[in-house]
Protein backbone atom coordinates (compact mmCIF):
# COMPACT_ATOMS: atom_id res chain seq x y z
CA UNK A 1 0.00 0.00 0.00
CA UNK A 2 1.09 3.57 -0.61
CA UNK A 3 -0.14 6.80 0.95
CA UNK A 4 -0.21 10.11 -0.91
CA UNK A 5 1.38 12.77 1.31
CA UNK A 6 1.39 15.73 -1.06
CA UNK A 7 -0.21 16.36 -4.44
CA UNK A 8 -1.73 19.17 -6.44
CA UNK A 9 -4.43 19.31 -9.11
CA UNK A 10 -5.25 16.60 -11.60
CA UNK A 11 -2.92 13.73 -10.77
CA UNK A 12 -4.86 10.53 -11.45
CA UNK A 13 -4.73 6.76 -11.70
CA UNK A 14 -4.44 5.75 -15.37
CA UNK A 15 -3.86 2.63 -17.43
CA UNK A 16 -3.79 2.17 -21.19
CA UNK A 17 -7.39 3.32 -21.42
CA UNK A 18 -10.95 2.17 -21.79
CA UNK A 19 -11.56 1.15 -25.38
CA UNK A 20 -14.87 -0.34 -26.43
CA UNK A 21 -17.35 2.12 -24.93
CA UNK A 22 -17.10 5.00 -27.36
CA UNK A 23 -20.43 3.90 -28.84
CA UNK A 24 -21.95 4.81 -25.43
CA UNK A 25 -20.19 8.14 -25.38
CA UNK A 26 -17.45 6.99 -22.98
CA UNK A 27 -14.04 8.27 -24.07
CA UNK A 28 -10.97 6.12 -23.66
CA UNK A 29 -9.09 8.15 -21.01
CA UNK A 30 -5.81 6.38 -20.23
CA UNK A 31 -2.24 7.62 -19.90
CA UNK A 32 -1.49 10.64 -22.09
CA UNK A 33 2.00 9.22 -22.68
CA UNK A 34 1.06 5.58 -23.21
CA UNK A 35 4.65 4.82 -24.24
CA UNK A 36 6.04 5.88 -20.85
CA UNK A 37 3.49 3.68 -19.06
CA UNK A 38 4.34 0.72 -21.28
CA UNK A 39 8.04 1.19 -20.52
CA UNK A 40 7.29 1.26 -16.80
CA UNK A 41 5.19 -1.89 -17.00
CA UNK A 42 7.81 -3.74 -19.04
CA UNK A 43 10.59 -2.73 -16.62
CA UNK A 44 8.57 -4.09 -13.71
CA UNK A 45 7.36 -7.28 -15.39
CA UNK A 46 3.77 -6.04 -15.11
CA UNK A 47 0.79 -6.75 -17.32
CA UNK A 48 0.68 -4.15 -20.08
CA UNK A 49 -2.68 -2.88 -18.85
CA UNK A 50 -1.60 -2.43 -15.23
CA UNK A 51 -2.41 1.00 -13.82
CA UNK A 52 -0.04 3.72 -12.63
CA UNK A 53 -0.21 7.24 -11.20
CA UNK A 54 -0.05 9.92 -13.88
CA UNK A 55 1.49 13.17 -12.65
CA UNK A 56 0.74 16.48 -14.31
CA UNK A 57 1.41 18.82 -11.39
CA UNK A 58 4.24 18.86 -8.86
CA UNK A 59 5.60 18.34 -6.28
CA UNK A 60 4.15 14.92 -5.57
CA UNK A 61 5.09 12.99 -2.45
CA UNK A 62 4.08 9.48 -1.42
CA UNK A 63 5.03 7.02 1.30
CA UNK A 64 5.52 3.31 0.76
CA UNK A 65 3.68 1.51 3.56
CA UNK A 66 5.16 -1.83 2.49
CA UNK A 67 8.28 -2.72 0.47
CA UNK A 68 7.65 -2.05 -3.21
CA UNK A 69 9.55 -1.97 -6.48
CA UNK A 70 8.80 1.00 -8.72
CA UNK A 71 9.94 3.08 -11.68
CA UNK A 72 9.18 6.70 -12.55
CA UNK A 73 8.94 7.23 -16.30
CA UNK A 74 7.83 10.02 -18.65
CA UNK A 75 9.43 13.32 -17.71
CA UNK A 76 12.87 14.02 -16.24
CA UNK A 77 12.71 15.56 -12.77
CA UNK A 78 14.45 15.65 -9.40
CA UNK A 79 13.29 12.40 -7.79
CA UNK A 80 14.31 11.49 -4.24
CA UNK A 81 13.72 8.39 -2.15
CA UNK A 82 14.23 9.42 1.47
CA UNK A 83 16.50 12.20 0.22
CA UNK A 84 18.60 9.93 -2.04
CA UNK A 85 18.49 11.03 -5.68
CA UNK A 86 17.24 8.39 -8.06
CA UNK A 87 16.94 8.47 -11.83
CA UNK A 88 13.79 8.34 -13.91
CA UNK A 89 13.36 5.26 -16.14
CA UNK A 90 15.13 3.13 -13.46
CA UNK A 91 13.79 0.25 -11.36
CA UNK A 92 14.22 0.85 -7.63
CA UNK A 93 12.99 -0.93 -4.52
CA UNK A 94 11.74 1.06 -1.55
CA UNK A 95 11.54 -0.21 2.02
CA UNK A 96 8.41 0.19 4.10
CA UNK A 97 8.15 3.75 5.40
CA UNK A 98 10.36 5.33 2.73
CA UNK A 99 9.15 8.55 1.11
CA UNK A 100 9.30 9.26 -2.62
CA UNK A 101 9.37 12.94 -3.60
CA UNK A 102 9.05 14.07 -7.20
CA UNK A 103 9.81 17.68 -8.05
CA UNK A 104 8.82 19.70 -11.13
CA UNK A 105 10.09 18.37 -14.46
CA UNK A 106 13.38 19.53 -15.92
CA UNK A 107 12.28 18.11 -19.27
CA UNK A 108 8.90 16.83 -20.35
CA UNK A 109 5.58 17.35 -18.60
CA UNK A 110 3.98 14.11 -17.40
CA UNK A 111 5.43 11.58 -14.98
CA UNK A 112 4.31 8.00 -14.46
CA UNK A 113 4.81 6.28 -11.12
CA UNK A 114 4.64 2.58 -11.98
CA UNK A 115 4.62 -0.06 -9.23
CA UNK A 116 5.40 -3.75 -9.54
CA UNK A 117 2.01 -5.45 -9.70
CA UNK A 118 0.21 -2.27 -10.70
CA UNK A 119 -2.20 -0.13 -8.73
CA UNK A 120 -5.27 -1.92 -7.49
CA UNK A 121 -8.43 0.09 -8.04
CA UNK A 122 -11.73 -1.39 -9.24
CA UNK A 123 -12.07 -2.08 -12.94
CA UNK A 124 -15.02 -0.03 -14.24
CA UNK A 125 -16.19 -0.69 -17.80
CA UNK A 126 -13.06 -2.69 -18.51
CA UNK A 127 -10.41 -0.24 -17.23
CA UNK A 128 -8.83 1.26 -14.13
CA UNK A 129 -8.42 4.65 -15.82
CA UNK A 130 -9.92 7.68 -14.17
CA UNK A 131 -12.75 9.09 -16.32
CA UNK A 132 -12.77 12.61 -14.92
CA UNK A 133 -15.75 13.88 -16.95
CA UNK A 134 -17.89 10.86 -16.13
CA UNK A 135 -16.66 10.77 -12.52
CA UNK A 136 -15.84 7.06 -12.44
CA UNK A 137 -12.81 4.77 -12.70
CA UNK A 138 -9.47 5.28 -10.98
CA UNK A 139 -9.87 6.27 -7.33
CA UNK A 140 -13.60 7.10 -7.02
CA UNK A 141 -13.53 8.85 -10.39
CA UNK A 142 -11.52 11.79 -9.06
CA UNK A 143 -7.98 13.17 -8.94
CA UNK A 144 -5.73 12.01 -6.08
CA UNK A 145 -5.67 13.97 -2.83
CA UNK A 146 -3.25 14.05 0.09
CA UNK A 147 -4.15 11.27 2.52
CA UNK A 148 -5.41 8.88 -0.17
CA UNK A 149 -4.12 5.32 0.04
CA UNK A 150 -3.71 3.04 -2.95
CA UNK A 151 -3.25 -0.72 -2.86
CA UNK A 152 -0.80 -2.58 -5.02
CA UNK A 153 -1.14 -6.23 -5.92
CA UNK A 154 2.54 -7.09 -6.33
CA UNK A 155 5.34 -7.76 -3.87
CA UNK A 156 8.78 -6.12 -4.21
CA UNK A 157 10.88 -7.66 -7.00
CA UNK A 158 14.04 -9.64 -6.26
CA UNK A 159 16.09 -7.72 -8.83
CA UNK A 160 16.26 -3.93 -9.24
CA UNK A 161 18.83 -1.35 -10.31
CA UNK A 162 18.32 -1.49 -14.06
CA UNK A 163 16.47 0.82 -16.39
CA UNK A 164 15.46 1.89 -19.87
CA UNK A 165 16.86 4.46 -22.24
CA UNK A 166 14.22 7.21 -22.47
CA UNK A 167 12.25 7.12 -25.75
CA UNK A 168 13.43 10.65 -26.58
CA UNK A 169 17.03 9.35 -26.60
CA UNK A 170 16.22 6.42 -28.86
CA UNK A 171 13.43 7.48 -31.20
CA UNK A 172 14.32 10.10 -33.81
CA UNK A 173 11.98 13.04 -34.08
CA UNK A 174 10.97 14.24 -37.51
CA UNK A 175 13.63 16.63 -38.76
CA UNK A 176 12.71 20.28 -38.52
CA UNK A 177 14.47 23.33 -37.20
CA UNK A 178 17.01 23.62 -34.44
CA UNK A 179 14.80 25.30 -31.89
CA UNK A 180 14.57 23.06 -28.81
CA UNK A 181 11.42 24.89 -27.74
CA UNK A 182 9.61 23.66 -30.87
CA UNK A 183 8.27 20.12 -30.88
CA UNK A 184 8.00 18.56 -34.31
CA UNK A 185 5.09 16.20 -34.92
CA UNK A 186 3.81 14.39 -37.97
CA UNK A 187 0.17 14.77 -39.01
CA UNK A 188 -2.04 13.47 -41.80
CA UNK A 189 -4.48 15.82 -43.54
CA UNK A 190 -8.00 14.90 -42.35
CA UNK A 191 -11.41 14.79 -44.04
CA UNK A 192 -12.14 18.53 -43.86
CA UNK A 193 -8.66 19.69 -44.92
CA UNK A 194 -9.98 20.81 -48.30
CA UNK A 195 -12.70 22.95 -46.67
CA UNK A 196 -9.95 25.36 -45.61
CA UNK A 197 -8.51 28.08 -47.84
CA UNK A 198 -5.19 27.24 -49.55
CA UNK A 199 -3.55 29.92 -47.37
CA UNK A 200 -4.94 28.28 -44.21
CA UNK A 201 -3.75 24.84 -45.38
CA UNK A 202 -0.24 26.22 -45.86
CA UNK A 203 -0.34 28.09 -42.56
CA UNK A 204 -1.25 24.88 -40.70
CA UNK A 205 2.17 23.45 -41.63
CA UNK A 206 4.16 26.69 -41.49
CA UNK A 207 3.05 27.95 -38.08
CA UNK A 208 4.90 27.22 -34.85
CA UNK A 209 1.70 26.84 -32.82
CA UNK A 210 1.92 27.87 -29.19
CA UNK A 211 0.37 25.55 -26.59
CA UNK A 212 -1.98 27.76 -24.56
CA UNK A 213 -2.75 27.44 -20.83
CA UNK A 214 -6.23 26.14 -21.84
CA UNK A 215 -4.59 22.80 -22.56
CA UNK A 216 -5.19 19.63 -20.60
CA UNK A 217 -5.93 15.92 -20.95
CA UNK A 218 -8.98 16.71 -23.08
CA UNK A 219 -6.98 18.57 -25.67
CA UNK A 220 -4.33 21.16 -26.40
CA UNK A 221 -5.60 24.52 -27.55
CA UNK A 222 -3.12 26.10 -29.90
CA UNK A 223 -2.52 29.74 -30.56
CA UNK A 224 -1.46 31.30 -33.86
CA UNK A 225 -2.91 33.11 -36.88
CA UNK A 226 -6.47 31.73 -37.36
CA UNK A 227 -7.21 29.13 -40.04
CA UNK A 228 -10.10 30.18 -42.27
CA UNK A 229 -12.64 27.96 -43.96
CA UNK A 230 -13.55 28.64 -47.58
CA UNK A 231 -17.09 29.11 -46.26
CA UNK A 232 -18.89 28.44 -43.00
CA UNK A 233 -20.06 24.87 -42.37
CA UNK A 234 -22.35 23.25 -39.79
CA UNK A 235 -21.11 19.66 -39.61
CA UNK A 236 -23.00 16.68 -38.26
CA UNK A 237 -21.46 15.08 -35.22
CA UNK A 238 -18.80 12.49 -35.98
CA UNK A 239 -16.41 10.21 -34.05
CA UNK A 240 -13.28 11.69 -32.47
CA UNK A 241 -10.00 9.98 -31.55
CA UNK A 242 -6.85 11.27 -29.87
CA UNK A 243 -4.73 13.23 -32.33
CA UNK A 244 -7.54 14.81 -34.34
CA UNK A 245 -6.92 18.53 -34.91
CA UNK A 246 -10.22 20.40 -34.92
CA UNK A 247 -10.71 24.03 -35.85
CA UNK A 248 -13.50 25.84 -33.95
CA UNK A 249 -15.07 28.97 -35.51
CA UNK A 250 -12.43 31.30 -34.04
CA UNK A 251 -9.86 29.51 -36.22
CA UNK A 252 -7.31 28.41 -33.64
CA UNK A 253 -6.85 24.63 -33.66
CA UNK A 254 -7.41 22.13 -30.83
CA UNK A 255 -5.60 18.78 -30.75
CA UNK A 256 -7.93 16.23 -29.16
CA UNK A 257 -6.23 13.96 -26.59
CA UNK A 258 -6.87 11.16 -24.06
CA UNK A 259 -9.96 12.69 -22.41
CA UNK A 260 -11.49 13.97 -25.66
CA UNK A 261 -15.22 13.71 -26.28
CA UNK A 262 -16.12 10.64 -28.33
CA UNK A 263 -17.78 12.76 -30.99
CA UNK A 264 -17.48 16.35 -32.09
CA UNK A 265 -18.75 18.75 -34.68
CA UNK A 266 -15.92 21.12 -35.60
CA UNK A 267 -14.10 20.78 -38.93
CA UNK A 268 -11.13 18.40 -38.81
CA UNK A 269 -8.07 19.68 -40.59
CA UNK A 270 -5.48 17.01 -39.66
CA UNK A 271 -4.61 14.14 -37.31
CA UNK A 272 -1.36 13.87 -35.34
CA UNK A 273 -0.14 10.31 -35.92
CA UNK A 274 -0.28 7.77 -33.11
CA UNK A 275 3.52 7.34 -33.09
CA UNK A 276 3.98 11.01 -32.08
CA UNK A 277 1.22 11.38 -29.48
CA UNK A 278 3.63 10.67 -26.60
CA UNK A 279 5.73 13.68 -27.66
CA UNK A 280 2.63 15.84 -27.40
CA UNK A 281 1.87 14.41 -23.94
CA UNK A 282 5.32 15.57 -22.84
CA UNK A 283 4.94 19.05 -24.39
CA UNK A 284 4.48 21.83 -21.88
CA UNK A 285 2.20 24.84 -21.93
CA UNK A 286 3.98 27.72 -23.64
CA UNK A 287 6.04 25.50 -25.91
CA UNK A 288 5.45 25.51 -29.64
CA UNK A 289 4.61 22.69 -31.98
CA UNK A 290 5.17 22.36 -35.70
CA UNK A 291 3.09 19.92 -37.70
CA UNK A 292 4.73 18.13 -40.62
CA UNK A 293 2.52 16.66 -43.31
CA UNK A 294 2.79 12.90 -43.63
CA UNK A 295 1.00 10.21 -45.60
CA UNK A 296 -0.93 7.26 -44.23
CA UNK A 297 1.95 4.93 -45.19
CA UNK A 298 4.47 7.16 -43.39
CA UNK A 299 2.21 7.29 -40.35
CA UNK A 300 1.98 3.49 -40.25
CA UNK A 301 5.75 3.09 -40.77
CA UNK A 302 6.41 5.51 -37.90
CA UNK A 303 5.03 2.95 -35.41
CA UNK A 304 7.77 0.45 -36.32
CA UNK A 305 10.62 2.12 -34.38
CA UNK A 306 8.28 2.55 -31.40
CA UNK A 307 7.32 -1.12 -31.40
CA UNK A 308 10.95 -2.16 -31.94
CA UNK A 309 12.01 -0.01 -28.96
CA UNK A 310 9.45 -1.74 -26.73
CA UNK A 311 10.36 -5.21 -28.05
CA UNK A 312 14.08 -4.58 -27.46
CA UNK A 313 13.33 -3.38 -23.96
CA UNK A 314 11.25 -6.48 -23.21
CA UNK A 315 14.14 -8.68 -24.32
CA UNK A 316 16.80 -6.72 -22.41
CA UNK A 317 14.76 -6.76 -19.21
CA UNK A 318 14.24 -10.52 -19.47
CA UNK A 319 17.98 -11.11 -20.11
CA UNK A 320 19.10 -8.79 -17.35
CA UNK A 321 16.77 -10.25 -14.78
CA UNK A 322 17.68 -13.82 -15.67
CA UNK A 323 21.43 -13.15 -15.50
CA UNK A 324 21.16 -11.12 -12.28
CA UNK A 325 19.29 -14.01 -10.72
CA UNK A 326 21.79 -16.62 -11.83
CA UNK A 327 24.69 -14.48 -10.55
CA UNK A 328 22.92 -14.21 -7.23
CA UNK A 329 22.24 -17.94 -7.22
CA UNK A 330 18.51 -17.37 -7.27
CA UNK A 331 16.21 -19.96 -8.70
CA UNK A 332 15.61 -19.12 -12.34
CA UNK A 333 12.06 -18.60 -13.45
CA UNK A 334 10.98 -17.41 -10.00
CA UNK A 335 9.21 -14.45 -11.47
CA UNK A 336 7.74 -11.94 -9.07
Amino acid at each position, binding site marked *: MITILETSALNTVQDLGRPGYRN*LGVGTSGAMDALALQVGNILLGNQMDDACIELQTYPFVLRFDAPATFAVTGMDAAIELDGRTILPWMVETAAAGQVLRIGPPKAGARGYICLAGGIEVPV*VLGSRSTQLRGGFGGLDGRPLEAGDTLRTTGAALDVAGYGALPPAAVLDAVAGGEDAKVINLRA*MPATDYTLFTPEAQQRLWDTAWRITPQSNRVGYRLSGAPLELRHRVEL*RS*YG*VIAGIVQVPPAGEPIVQLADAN*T*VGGYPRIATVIEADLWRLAQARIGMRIRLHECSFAE*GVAAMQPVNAYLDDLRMMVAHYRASARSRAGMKSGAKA
Partner: protein
Amino acid sequence: MIGTRAMLFEAPGDFTMAHQRRVWALMDAAQARPDVCELIPGVTNLMLIFSAPPDSPQAVADWLCHAWNTLPERHIEGKLFEIGVRYGGALGEDLAAVCAHSGLSPQDVISIHHGSEYTVCAIGSAPGFGYLHGLDPRIATPRKTVPSLNMQAGTVIIGGMQAGISALTGPNGWNSIGFTDLRVFDPYKQPPALFAVGDRIRFYPESIEL
Protein backbone atom coordinates in the same frame (compact mmCIF):
# COMPACT_ATOMS: atom_id res chain seq x y z
CA MET B 1 -8.37 7.72 -42.98
CA ILE B 2 -8.38 9.77 -39.81
CA GLY B 3 -4.97 8.91 -38.43
CA THR B 4 -3.49 5.48 -38.96
CA ARG B 5 -6.13 3.38 -37.20
CA ALA B 6 -9.43 5.14 -37.88
CA MET B 7 -11.59 5.66 -40.94
CA LEU B 8 -14.63 7.87 -41.24
CA PHE B 9 -17.50 6.98 -43.53
CA GLU B 10 -19.78 9.92 -44.31
CA ALA B 11 -23.11 9.22 -45.99
CA PRO B 12 -24.00 11.52 -48.83
CA GLY B 13 -27.21 13.53 -48.58
CA ASP B 14 -29.43 14.92 -45.85
CA PHE B 15 -29.86 14.02 -42.20
CA THR B 16 -32.87 11.72 -42.54
CA MET B 17 -33.87 8.70 -40.51
CA ALA B 18 -33.69 6.59 -43.66
CA HIS B 19 -30.00 7.52 -43.96
CA GLN B 20 -29.42 6.90 -40.28
CA ARG B 21 -31.02 3.43 -40.54
CA ARG B 22 -28.57 2.65 -43.34
CA VAL B 23 -25.72 3.81 -41.08
CA TRP B 24 -26.99 1.37 -38.43
CA ALA B 25 -27.05 -1.41 -41.03
CA LEU B 26 -23.50 -0.49 -42.01
CA MET B 27 -22.50 -0.54 -38.34
CA ASP B 28 -23.83 -4.10 -37.97
CA ALA B 29 -21.93 -5.23 -41.05
CA ALA B 30 -18.70 -3.49 -39.96
CA GLN B 31 -19.00 -5.07 -36.49
CA ALA B 32 -18.44 -8.45 -38.11
CA ARG B 33 -15.12 -7.42 -39.68
CA PRO B 34 -12.22 -8.99 -37.76
CA ASP B 35 -10.00 -5.91 -38.21
CA VAL B 36 -12.49 -3.54 -36.55
CA CYS B 37 -12.11 -3.09 -32.80
CA GLU B 38 -14.47 -0.19 -32.19
CA LEU B 39 -17.25 1.64 -34.02
CA ILE B 40 -18.54 5.14 -33.37
CA PRO B 41 -21.83 5.83 -35.11
CA GLY B 42 -22.22 9.55 -35.68
CA VAL B 43 -25.00 11.49 -37.31
CA THR B 44 -25.20 10.00 -40.83
CA ASN B 45 -21.60 8.88 -40.50
CA LEU B 46 -19.66 6.00 -38.98
CA MET B 47 -16.12 5.89 -37.62
CA LEU B 48 -14.27 2.59 -37.73
CA ILE B 49 -11.34 2.08 -35.37
CA PHE B 50 -9.02 -0.75 -36.37
CA SER B 51 -6.92 -2.93 -34.09
CA ALA B 52 -4.00 -2.32 -36.49
CA PRO B 53 -3.62 0.01 -39.49
CA PRO B 54 -5.35 -1.64 -42.48
CA ASP B 55 -3.06 -2.94 -45.22
CA SER B 56 -5.23 -1.31 -47.83
CA PRO B 57 -7.49 1.54 -46.70
CA GLN B 58 -8.87 1.65 -50.24
CA ALA B 59 -10.08 -1.96 -49.95
CA VAL B 60 -11.91 -1.11 -46.72
CA ALA B 61 -13.39 2.02 -48.32
CA ASP B 62 -14.58 -0.03 -51.30
CA TRP B 63 -16.13 -2.58 -48.96
CA LEU B 64 -17.92 0.21 -47.05
CA CYS B 65 -19.26 1.83 -50.22
CA HIS B 66 -20.48 -1.52 -51.52
CA ALA B 67 -22.16 -2.30 -48.18
CA TRP B 68 -23.72 1.17 -48.11
CA ASN B 69 -25.16 0.72 -51.59
CA THR B 70 -26.51 -2.80 -51.09
CA LEU B 71 -27.59 -3.17 -47.45
CA PRO B 72 -31.24 -2.57 -46.57
CA GLU B 73 -32.17 -0.07 -43.85
CA ARG B 74 -32.01 -1.51 -40.37
CA HIS B 75 -35.19 -0.83 -38.42
CA ILE B 76 -34.76 -0.92 -34.65
CA GLU B 77 -37.88 -1.26 -32.54
CA GLY B 78 -36.56 0.84 -29.68
CA LYS B 79 -38.04 1.66 -26.29
CA LEU B 80 -40.33 4.67 -25.91
CA PHE B 81 -39.41 7.24 -23.24
CA GLU B 82 -41.84 9.94 -22.14
CA ILE B 83 -39.88 12.72 -20.48
CA GLY B 84 -41.26 15.65 -18.52
CA VAL B 85 -39.49 18.97 -19.14
CA ARG B 86 -39.42 22.15 -17.10
CA TYR B 87 -39.24 24.60 -19.99
CA GLY B 88 -37.57 28.01 -19.74
CA GLY B 89 -36.23 29.53 -16.54
CA ALA B 90 -32.56 29.76 -15.58
CA LEU B 91 -31.85 26.19 -16.76
CA GLY B 92 -33.38 26.90 -20.17
CA GLU B 93 -31.98 30.37 -20.64
CA ASP B 94 -31.29 30.05 -24.36
CA LEU B 95 -35.01 29.78 -25.12
CA ALA B 96 -34.81 33.48 -26.00
CA ALA B 97 -32.04 32.80 -28.52
CA VAL B 98 -34.11 30.04 -30.14
CA CYS B 99 -37.08 32.45 -30.34
CA ALA B 100 -34.87 35.16 -31.85
CA HIS B 101 -33.43 32.77 -34.42
CA SER B 102 -36.76 31.21 -35.36
CA GLY B 103 -38.90 34.32 -35.12
CA LEU B 104 -41.39 32.37 -32.99
CA SER B 105 -42.87 33.08 -29.56
CA PRO B 106 -41.59 31.06 -26.55
CA GLN B 107 -44.95 29.26 -26.35
CA ASP B 108 -44.68 28.24 -30.00
CA VAL B 109 -41.09 27.04 -29.63
CA ILE B 110 -42.08 24.94 -26.61
CA SER B 111 -45.15 23.40 -28.23
CA ILE B 112 -43.21 22.66 -31.43
CA HIS B 113 -40.45 21.04 -29.32
CA HIS B 114 -42.78 18.67 -27.46
CA GLY B 115 -44.99 18.14 -30.49
CA SER B 116 -42.44 15.93 -32.23
CA GLU B 117 -41.34 12.38 -31.57
CA TYR B 118 -37.58 11.98 -31.55
CA THR B 119 -35.35 9.02 -32.35
CA VAL B 120 -31.95 8.37 -30.75
CA CYS B 121 -29.73 8.16 -33.80
CA ALA B 122 -26.35 8.04 -32.06
CA ILE B 123 -24.88 8.02 -28.55
CA GLY B 124 -21.74 9.98 -27.93
CA SER B 125 -19.85 13.13 -27.00
CA ALA B 126 -20.40 12.52 -23.28
CA PRO B 127 -21.25 9.21 -21.57
CA GLY B 128 -24.81 8.29 -22.50
CA PHE B 129 -25.60 11.45 -24.48
CA GLY B 130 -28.13 10.72 -27.24
CA TYR B 131 -28.26 12.67 -30.49
CA LEU B 132 -31.94 13.00 -31.29
CA HIS B 133 -33.43 13.16 -34.74
CA GLY B 134 -36.86 14.65 -35.24
CA LEU B 135 -36.39 18.33 -34.42
CA ASP B 136 -38.81 20.51 -36.32
CA PRO B 137 -36.69 22.62 -38.72
CA ARG B 138 -38.59 25.74 -37.61
CA ILE B 139 -36.79 25.67 -34.23
CA ALA B 140 -33.39 24.43 -35.44
CA THR B 141 -30.80 26.85 -34.02
CA PRO B 142 -27.03 26.82 -34.65
CA ARG B 143 -24.65 25.99 -31.82
CA LYS B 144 -23.53 28.99 -29.79
CA THR B 145 -20.24 30.65 -30.71
CA VAL B 146 -19.46 31.03 -26.99
CA PRO B 147 -20.38 27.85 -25.07
CA SER B 148 -22.04 27.91 -21.64
CA LEU B 149 -19.34 27.05 -19.14
CA ASN B 150 -21.39 25.14 -16.61
CA MET B 151 -24.53 23.70 -18.15
CA GLN B 152 -26.30 21.24 -15.80
CA ALA B 153 -26.70 17.55 -16.63
CA GLY B 154 -30.32 17.05 -17.65
CA THR B 155 -30.60 20.28 -19.68
CA VAL B 156 -32.86 19.92 -22.72
CA ILE B 157 -30.95 21.34 -25.66
CA ILE B 158 -30.92 22.15 -29.38
CA GLY B 159 -27.76 22.16 -31.52
CA GLY B 160 -28.39 22.89 -35.19
CA MET B 161 -30.85 20.28 -36.50
CA GLN B 162 -30.09 18.03 -33.52
CA ALA B 163 -31.82 17.80 -30.16
CA GLY B 164 -30.69 16.21 -26.90
CA ILE B 165 -30.52 16.06 -23.10
CA SER B 166 -27.12 16.98 -21.69
CA ALA B 167 -25.44 14.04 -19.94
CA LEU B 168 -22.87 15.83 -17.80
CA THR B 169 -22.52 19.15 -16.05
CA GLY B 170 -19.93 21.22 -17.86
CA PRO B 171 -19.21 23.37 -20.92
CA ASN B 172 -21.77 23.01 -23.70
CA GLY B 173 -22.30 24.91 -26.94
CA TRP B 174 -25.90 23.86 -27.56
CA ASN B 175 -28.93 26.02 -26.77
CA SER B 176 -30.69 25.22 -23.48
CA ILE B 177 -34.49 25.43 -23.52
CA GLY B 178 -35.46 23.43 -20.42
CA PHE B 179 -34.49 20.84 -17.83
CA THR B 180 -35.32 17.27 -16.74
CA ASP B 181 -34.20 15.28 -13.68
CA LEU B 182 -33.46 12.26 -15.85
CA ARG B 183 -29.88 10.93 -15.66
CA VAL B 184 -28.80 9.26 -18.87
CA PHE B 185 -25.71 7.36 -17.67
CA ASP B 186 -24.67 5.14 -14.74
CA PRO B 187 -21.38 3.22 -15.15
CA TYR B 188 -22.46 0.60 -12.60
CA LYS B 189 -25.70 -0.30 -14.38
CA GLN B 190 -25.98 -2.77 -17.20
CA PRO B 191 -26.29 -1.29 -19.75
CA PRO B 192 -24.68 1.91 -18.43
CA ALA B 193 -26.43 4.16 -20.95
CA LEU B 194 -30.17 4.77 -20.51
CA PHE B 195 -30.77 5.26 -24.24
CA ALA B 196 -29.81 3.01 -27.12
CA VAL B 197 -29.85 3.90 -30.80
CA GLY B 198 -33.34 3.47 -32.17
CA ASP B 199 -35.10 4.42 -28.92
CA ARG B 200 -37.89 6.98 -29.26
CA ILE B 201 -38.46 9.98 -27.05
CA ARG B 202 -41.51 12.15 -26.44
CA PHE B 203 -41.25 15.28 -24.31
CA TYR B 204 -44.14 16.77 -22.38
CA PRO B 205 -44.20 20.06 -20.45
CA GLU B 206 -43.98 19.61 -16.71
CA SER B 207 -43.86 23.35 -16.19
CA ILE B 208 -43.18 26.48 -18.22
CA GLU B 209 -41.37 29.50 -16.83
CA LEU B 210 -41.04 32.49 -19.11
